[in-house]
Each structure stands twice: as structure tokens, then as C-alpha cells.
């Protein structure tokens, strides 16, 4: 049975314990883009968002988990909404990254999580553009790509993920996906009864065959920076190929017309010098 996580954003308090736990367990370094170096030591922090408690801004090769802070409305008007969402790889049931990887470095384990085999990846970066969530990132220092592994080393030993373990409010819960979905659907109903009309699941079976890491959101997916209806990159394969074949036929025809003539082979009678 696939393992995954249910992330209930309605009880996330934005403490970033998950982000820290992920960094620590996976031994992820600091964000290279955030520091200048002198003598091998960071001397100046830069590129922090500066206008939000969201300090990393996005997922990256060294941030496999990113706590989004979404400030909506206005405190002056009394409609301030402050959303948090602990974002990471969704380990999609239909994973575009997995499909496009030419080296088979990206693979799905028997627990349903998608991991990058670092000893196979050659840094072609096809997977980066194929991910509709901007999850996979290129690591310039290693020449390979990185992303959340769903703590593969932990879960294969029967442990829960580091982020779920560290979460103080159980906003992130690790378990069997099917069971998590039942819990999540009940939670949505509860929230709706409490007046959260827009409460909804993101990543139930309707998105890319189901996301093994899925979310309970209090507003529309776009508010949390998530695409409403992500598609596999393969959607363009057949139309792109058909148009290319059409162009090839047109080109072949026009070239044939230009060079029309009976097929005659000349073994050196003309243009001997070339």
C-alpha cells in the first residue's frame, strides 16, 4: 500500500519545525543563493524574501520543504487571512518527472514514493520542466537534481517522515494513503460545518491520479500557489509529433518538387572536386 502524507493546512501554525527537521535529517546545506562567501565562509545573507515570514520563498535543491505564508485581505478591514502551507514533493501517482527521466534515475519505490537515484542521475534536468509544481531543483554543486524523498531511508525502516515527526500540531500526518484520505474527507466535512465554506482537499484522486502527499486547503488551490488542474507533460507528445510529421511531409514534398528529376546515380561524373 502506498505511503504518503496528509497536510492539514487549517491547523498549521507556521513554526517551520518541518522545514528544519527536513534539513537536519537529510543533511541539506544552506541555500547557495542566499550567501556570499569569503574564504569559504558565508559573510552576507541575501535574497531572503524580506516582506514575509516565508523566508525561503520556494523549494530548491537544499530546501525540500517550504512553509508558504500567504497573507490575504487587510487587517484594517477586518478580513485578514493568514494561511500557511507546508509544501513539498507530492509524490504524484502519475509523476511527470518519472516519465521524462531518460536515465531511469527517478524511480518509484514499493511504498509509492518517487526518489532520485543520485548514482544514476546525470543532470540532464528534463524532470525540472516536467514537474508542474516546481519541486525538482538542480544542484549546481553536485550536477544532479534533488527533491524530497518522503524520507525514503526512514519509511523503509518503518519510521514516519522527519517533517511529520517534528510537526507539533499534527498538521502533517504520515501513513497509508487510503486511510489518510478517509480521515481527510471527514476533516473537510467538519470544517465546512464550522463555516469554512471553501475548505477542500487538493490532491485527492482527481489530480494526477492522486497525490500521495495531499492537502486540506481553506481556499482555492491558486491562493496557495498550486495549479488547479496540472497535466502530465506527455500531453504534448502526440500533437507535437503529429505537427512535426506534417511539417516533414510538407518539407519532403517541397524539396522533391525543387529537385524533381529521375533518380540517377552518378559515381563521380559531376562535381568530382567535392
Amino acid at each position, binding site marked *: 500500500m502506498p505511503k504518503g502524507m496528509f497536510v492539514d493546512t487549517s491547523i498549521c501554525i507556521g513554526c517551520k519545525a518541518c522545514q528544519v527537521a527536513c534539513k537536519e535529517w537529510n543533511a541539506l546545506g544552506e541555500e547557495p543563493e542566499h550567501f556570499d562567501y569569503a574564504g569559504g565562509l558565508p559573510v552576507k545573507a541575501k535574497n531572503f524574501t524580506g516582506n514575509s515570514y516565508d523566508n525561503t520563498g*520556494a523549494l530548491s535543491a537544499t530546501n525540500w520543504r517550504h512553509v508558504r505564508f500567504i497573507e490575504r485581505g487587510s487587517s484594517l478591514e477586518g478580513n485578514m487571512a493568514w494561511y500557511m502551507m507546508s509544501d513539498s514533493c507530492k509524490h504524484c501517482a502519475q509523476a*511527470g518527472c518519472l*516519465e*521524462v*527521466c*531518460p*536515465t*531511469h534515475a527517478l524511480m518509484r519505490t514499493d511504498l509509492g514514493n518517487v526518489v532520485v537515484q543520485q548514482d*544514476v*542521475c*546525470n*543532470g*540532464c*534536468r*528534463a524532470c*525540472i*520542466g*516536467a*514537474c*508542474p*509544481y*516546481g519541486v525538482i*531543483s538542480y*544542484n549546481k554543486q553536485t*550536477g544532479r*537534481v534533488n527533491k524530497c524523498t518522503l524520507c525514503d531511508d526512514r519509511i523503509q525502516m518503518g519510521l514516519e517522515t522527519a517533517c511529520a515527526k517534528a510537526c507539533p500540531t499534527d498538521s502533517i500526518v504520515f501513513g497509508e494513503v487510503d486511510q489518510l484520505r478517509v480521515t481527510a474527507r471527514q476533516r473537510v466535512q467538519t470544517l465546512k460545518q464550522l463555516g469554512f465554506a471553501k475548505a477542500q482537499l487538493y490532491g485527492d484522486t482527481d489530480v494526477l491520479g492522486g497525490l500521495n502527499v495531499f492537502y486540506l486547503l481553506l481556499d482555492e488551490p*491558486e491562493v496557495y*500557489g498550486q*495549479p*488547479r488542474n*496540472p497535466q502530465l*507533460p*506527455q500531453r*504534448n*507528445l502526440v500533437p*507535437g*509529433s*503529429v*505537427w*512535426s510529421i506534417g*511539417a*516533414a511531409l510538407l*518539407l*519532403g514534398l*517541397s*524539396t*522533391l518538387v*525543387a*529537385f524533381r*528529376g*529521375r*533518380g*540517377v546515380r552518378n*559515381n*563521380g561524373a*559531376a*562535381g*568530382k*572536386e*567535392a
Partner: protein
Amino acid sequence: MPGELQPPLWEWWIVVYFFVGGIAGGAYFTSAILELVGRPEDRPIARMGYYIAFPLSLVSAVALIADLGRPERFWHMVVYSKTFLPWPKWDSPISVGAYALLFFGLFSFLSFLDALVETGRLPWAPLREKYSGTPRMIYSILGGLNGFFLASYTGVLLAHTHLAAWANTPLLGALFLISGASTGMAAIALGLILAKVDVGEAWARLKQADNWAMIVEIVLLVVLLAWLGSASASLLSGLNGILLIGGVVIVGLLVPLAMQFRAGFQGAKSSANTTALVAVLILVGGFLMRTVIVMAPQGLL
């Protein structure tokens, strides 16, 4: 941007790969057509295409490898590193493209040898003896098909992402294929001029074929931009727009076409310098097109 999409950071090596691979594929395809229907006086054109295609297939491979984060693992593209067995992935353009490049290299090498033996530049007796018995028509056709694929799959590869300017149109493969043909023919013309080969009346046929390719390319580019709609903003804004409209459409396509037609209307034979200039402009346009289309949507230009 939904999901904060990340660009794959394909930069200059990929631009070079797309450009050179397109020329190689287009030049070989032209030669393969001539192998099938060419007249005797077209033969030097076909040979020049073969002379160009094989070396450029090697350059393509070098550029593709150089772009990898771990170039020493280039062979992982065609052989799974844990079993050492080929493991193609049919819905991964890069995987299929790597095999296509491999086979194209093989076929273009055979045709390259053919041309050398045919002209006596490779006087090695065993090859000369086998020359008339080689099934060159077969590998020309297979190589031509591979050349087509090599020139076009790069566009399909870009469309195989979520970046709007690449993914919101199915026309990139077709555009790259046509551009590969026009730049391939331009490279053949330039090669013939540099080698001081006069192919007589065959010049007109080569130019006519290239003109057709350029006209189709202009139409495709316009349709592609219209198809993209607002997603074409990254291609048309600022320097990108100047390079695409000014560099690609005007300098790389309209000016060469005007020069060719002007010479045609006047009934005069173009001078070698004019033909060379036209070829260079077409090549510059082809390079700029790859540059803008690859770099601009990633915010790298």
C-alpha cells in the same frame, strides 16, 4: 506562476545542440532526398550534405554531453547504469533523442565515408571495392528519417514541460524541423562556395528548396506566436522581441528571401558572395531563433 515552476536551466550548450543538430539533420535530409531523386549535377550537393552532417553530429553530441551536470555519465542516456542494458523510454523525448542521435551518427558516418570514397579522397582499397555494393540508399533513407527526428524532437522536448511559451503550442517541433532544413541547405550552399564547387544549374534547385523552407518557416513562426497568445510575451518583450522579429524574421528569413527573389526576377545568376551572404544570414537567423526560444522562457536572456 502556479506552483512556482522552475526552469530546467538549459543554456548555451543546448542552444548550440539544437542549432547544430538541426543543421546536421537538415543537411543529411537534403542529401537523402537527392540520393533518391537527384540529377547527376546535384551529386556534389548531396556529398556536401554528407560532409556536413557527420562532423556536426559529433559536435551535437559534444554539446549535449557538455550541458549535463555530470558529463561523465552521458552513457546513462542509452544504457541503464545498474544493468548495463539499453532501456529506451518511448515517452521521454530526451531518451528517444539520444538513441536517434546515436543512429544518426552511424548513418551519417556511413554516408560520409561514401562521399570520401566516391571522390577518391579515401583511396583505401577495401572500401573502394565494396563501394558499388553498399546499400547506401537504405541507410540514406534511415539516416534521413533520423535527421528529421533529430531536427524536430528538440522542439517536442521543449513542449514536454510546463513553461507556457514552450508547452502551450504543439508547433515547436515542426518549426525546428523546417528551420533545420533551411539552415542545413544554407550550410550546404556555404560549404560549396567555400570549397569552390560550381554546381551549375543545381544552384537554382538548392535555392528553390531553401526558399520553400524559409517561406514555410515564416508562416509557422507567425502561427506559433498567434497560437501562444499571451504566453508569447517572454518571446516578444524587450531584447527577445528584437532578436526574434529583427534577427530571426527580418535578417534571417525576409532579407535572404528578398535577395534570392531579386536575383531570380532579374534572371541573373547570384554571385558567390551574394549566395554566401544569404547562407550566413539564414544561419544567423537559425541560431538566434534557438537562442530566443530556448533562453527567453526561462528568463535567461
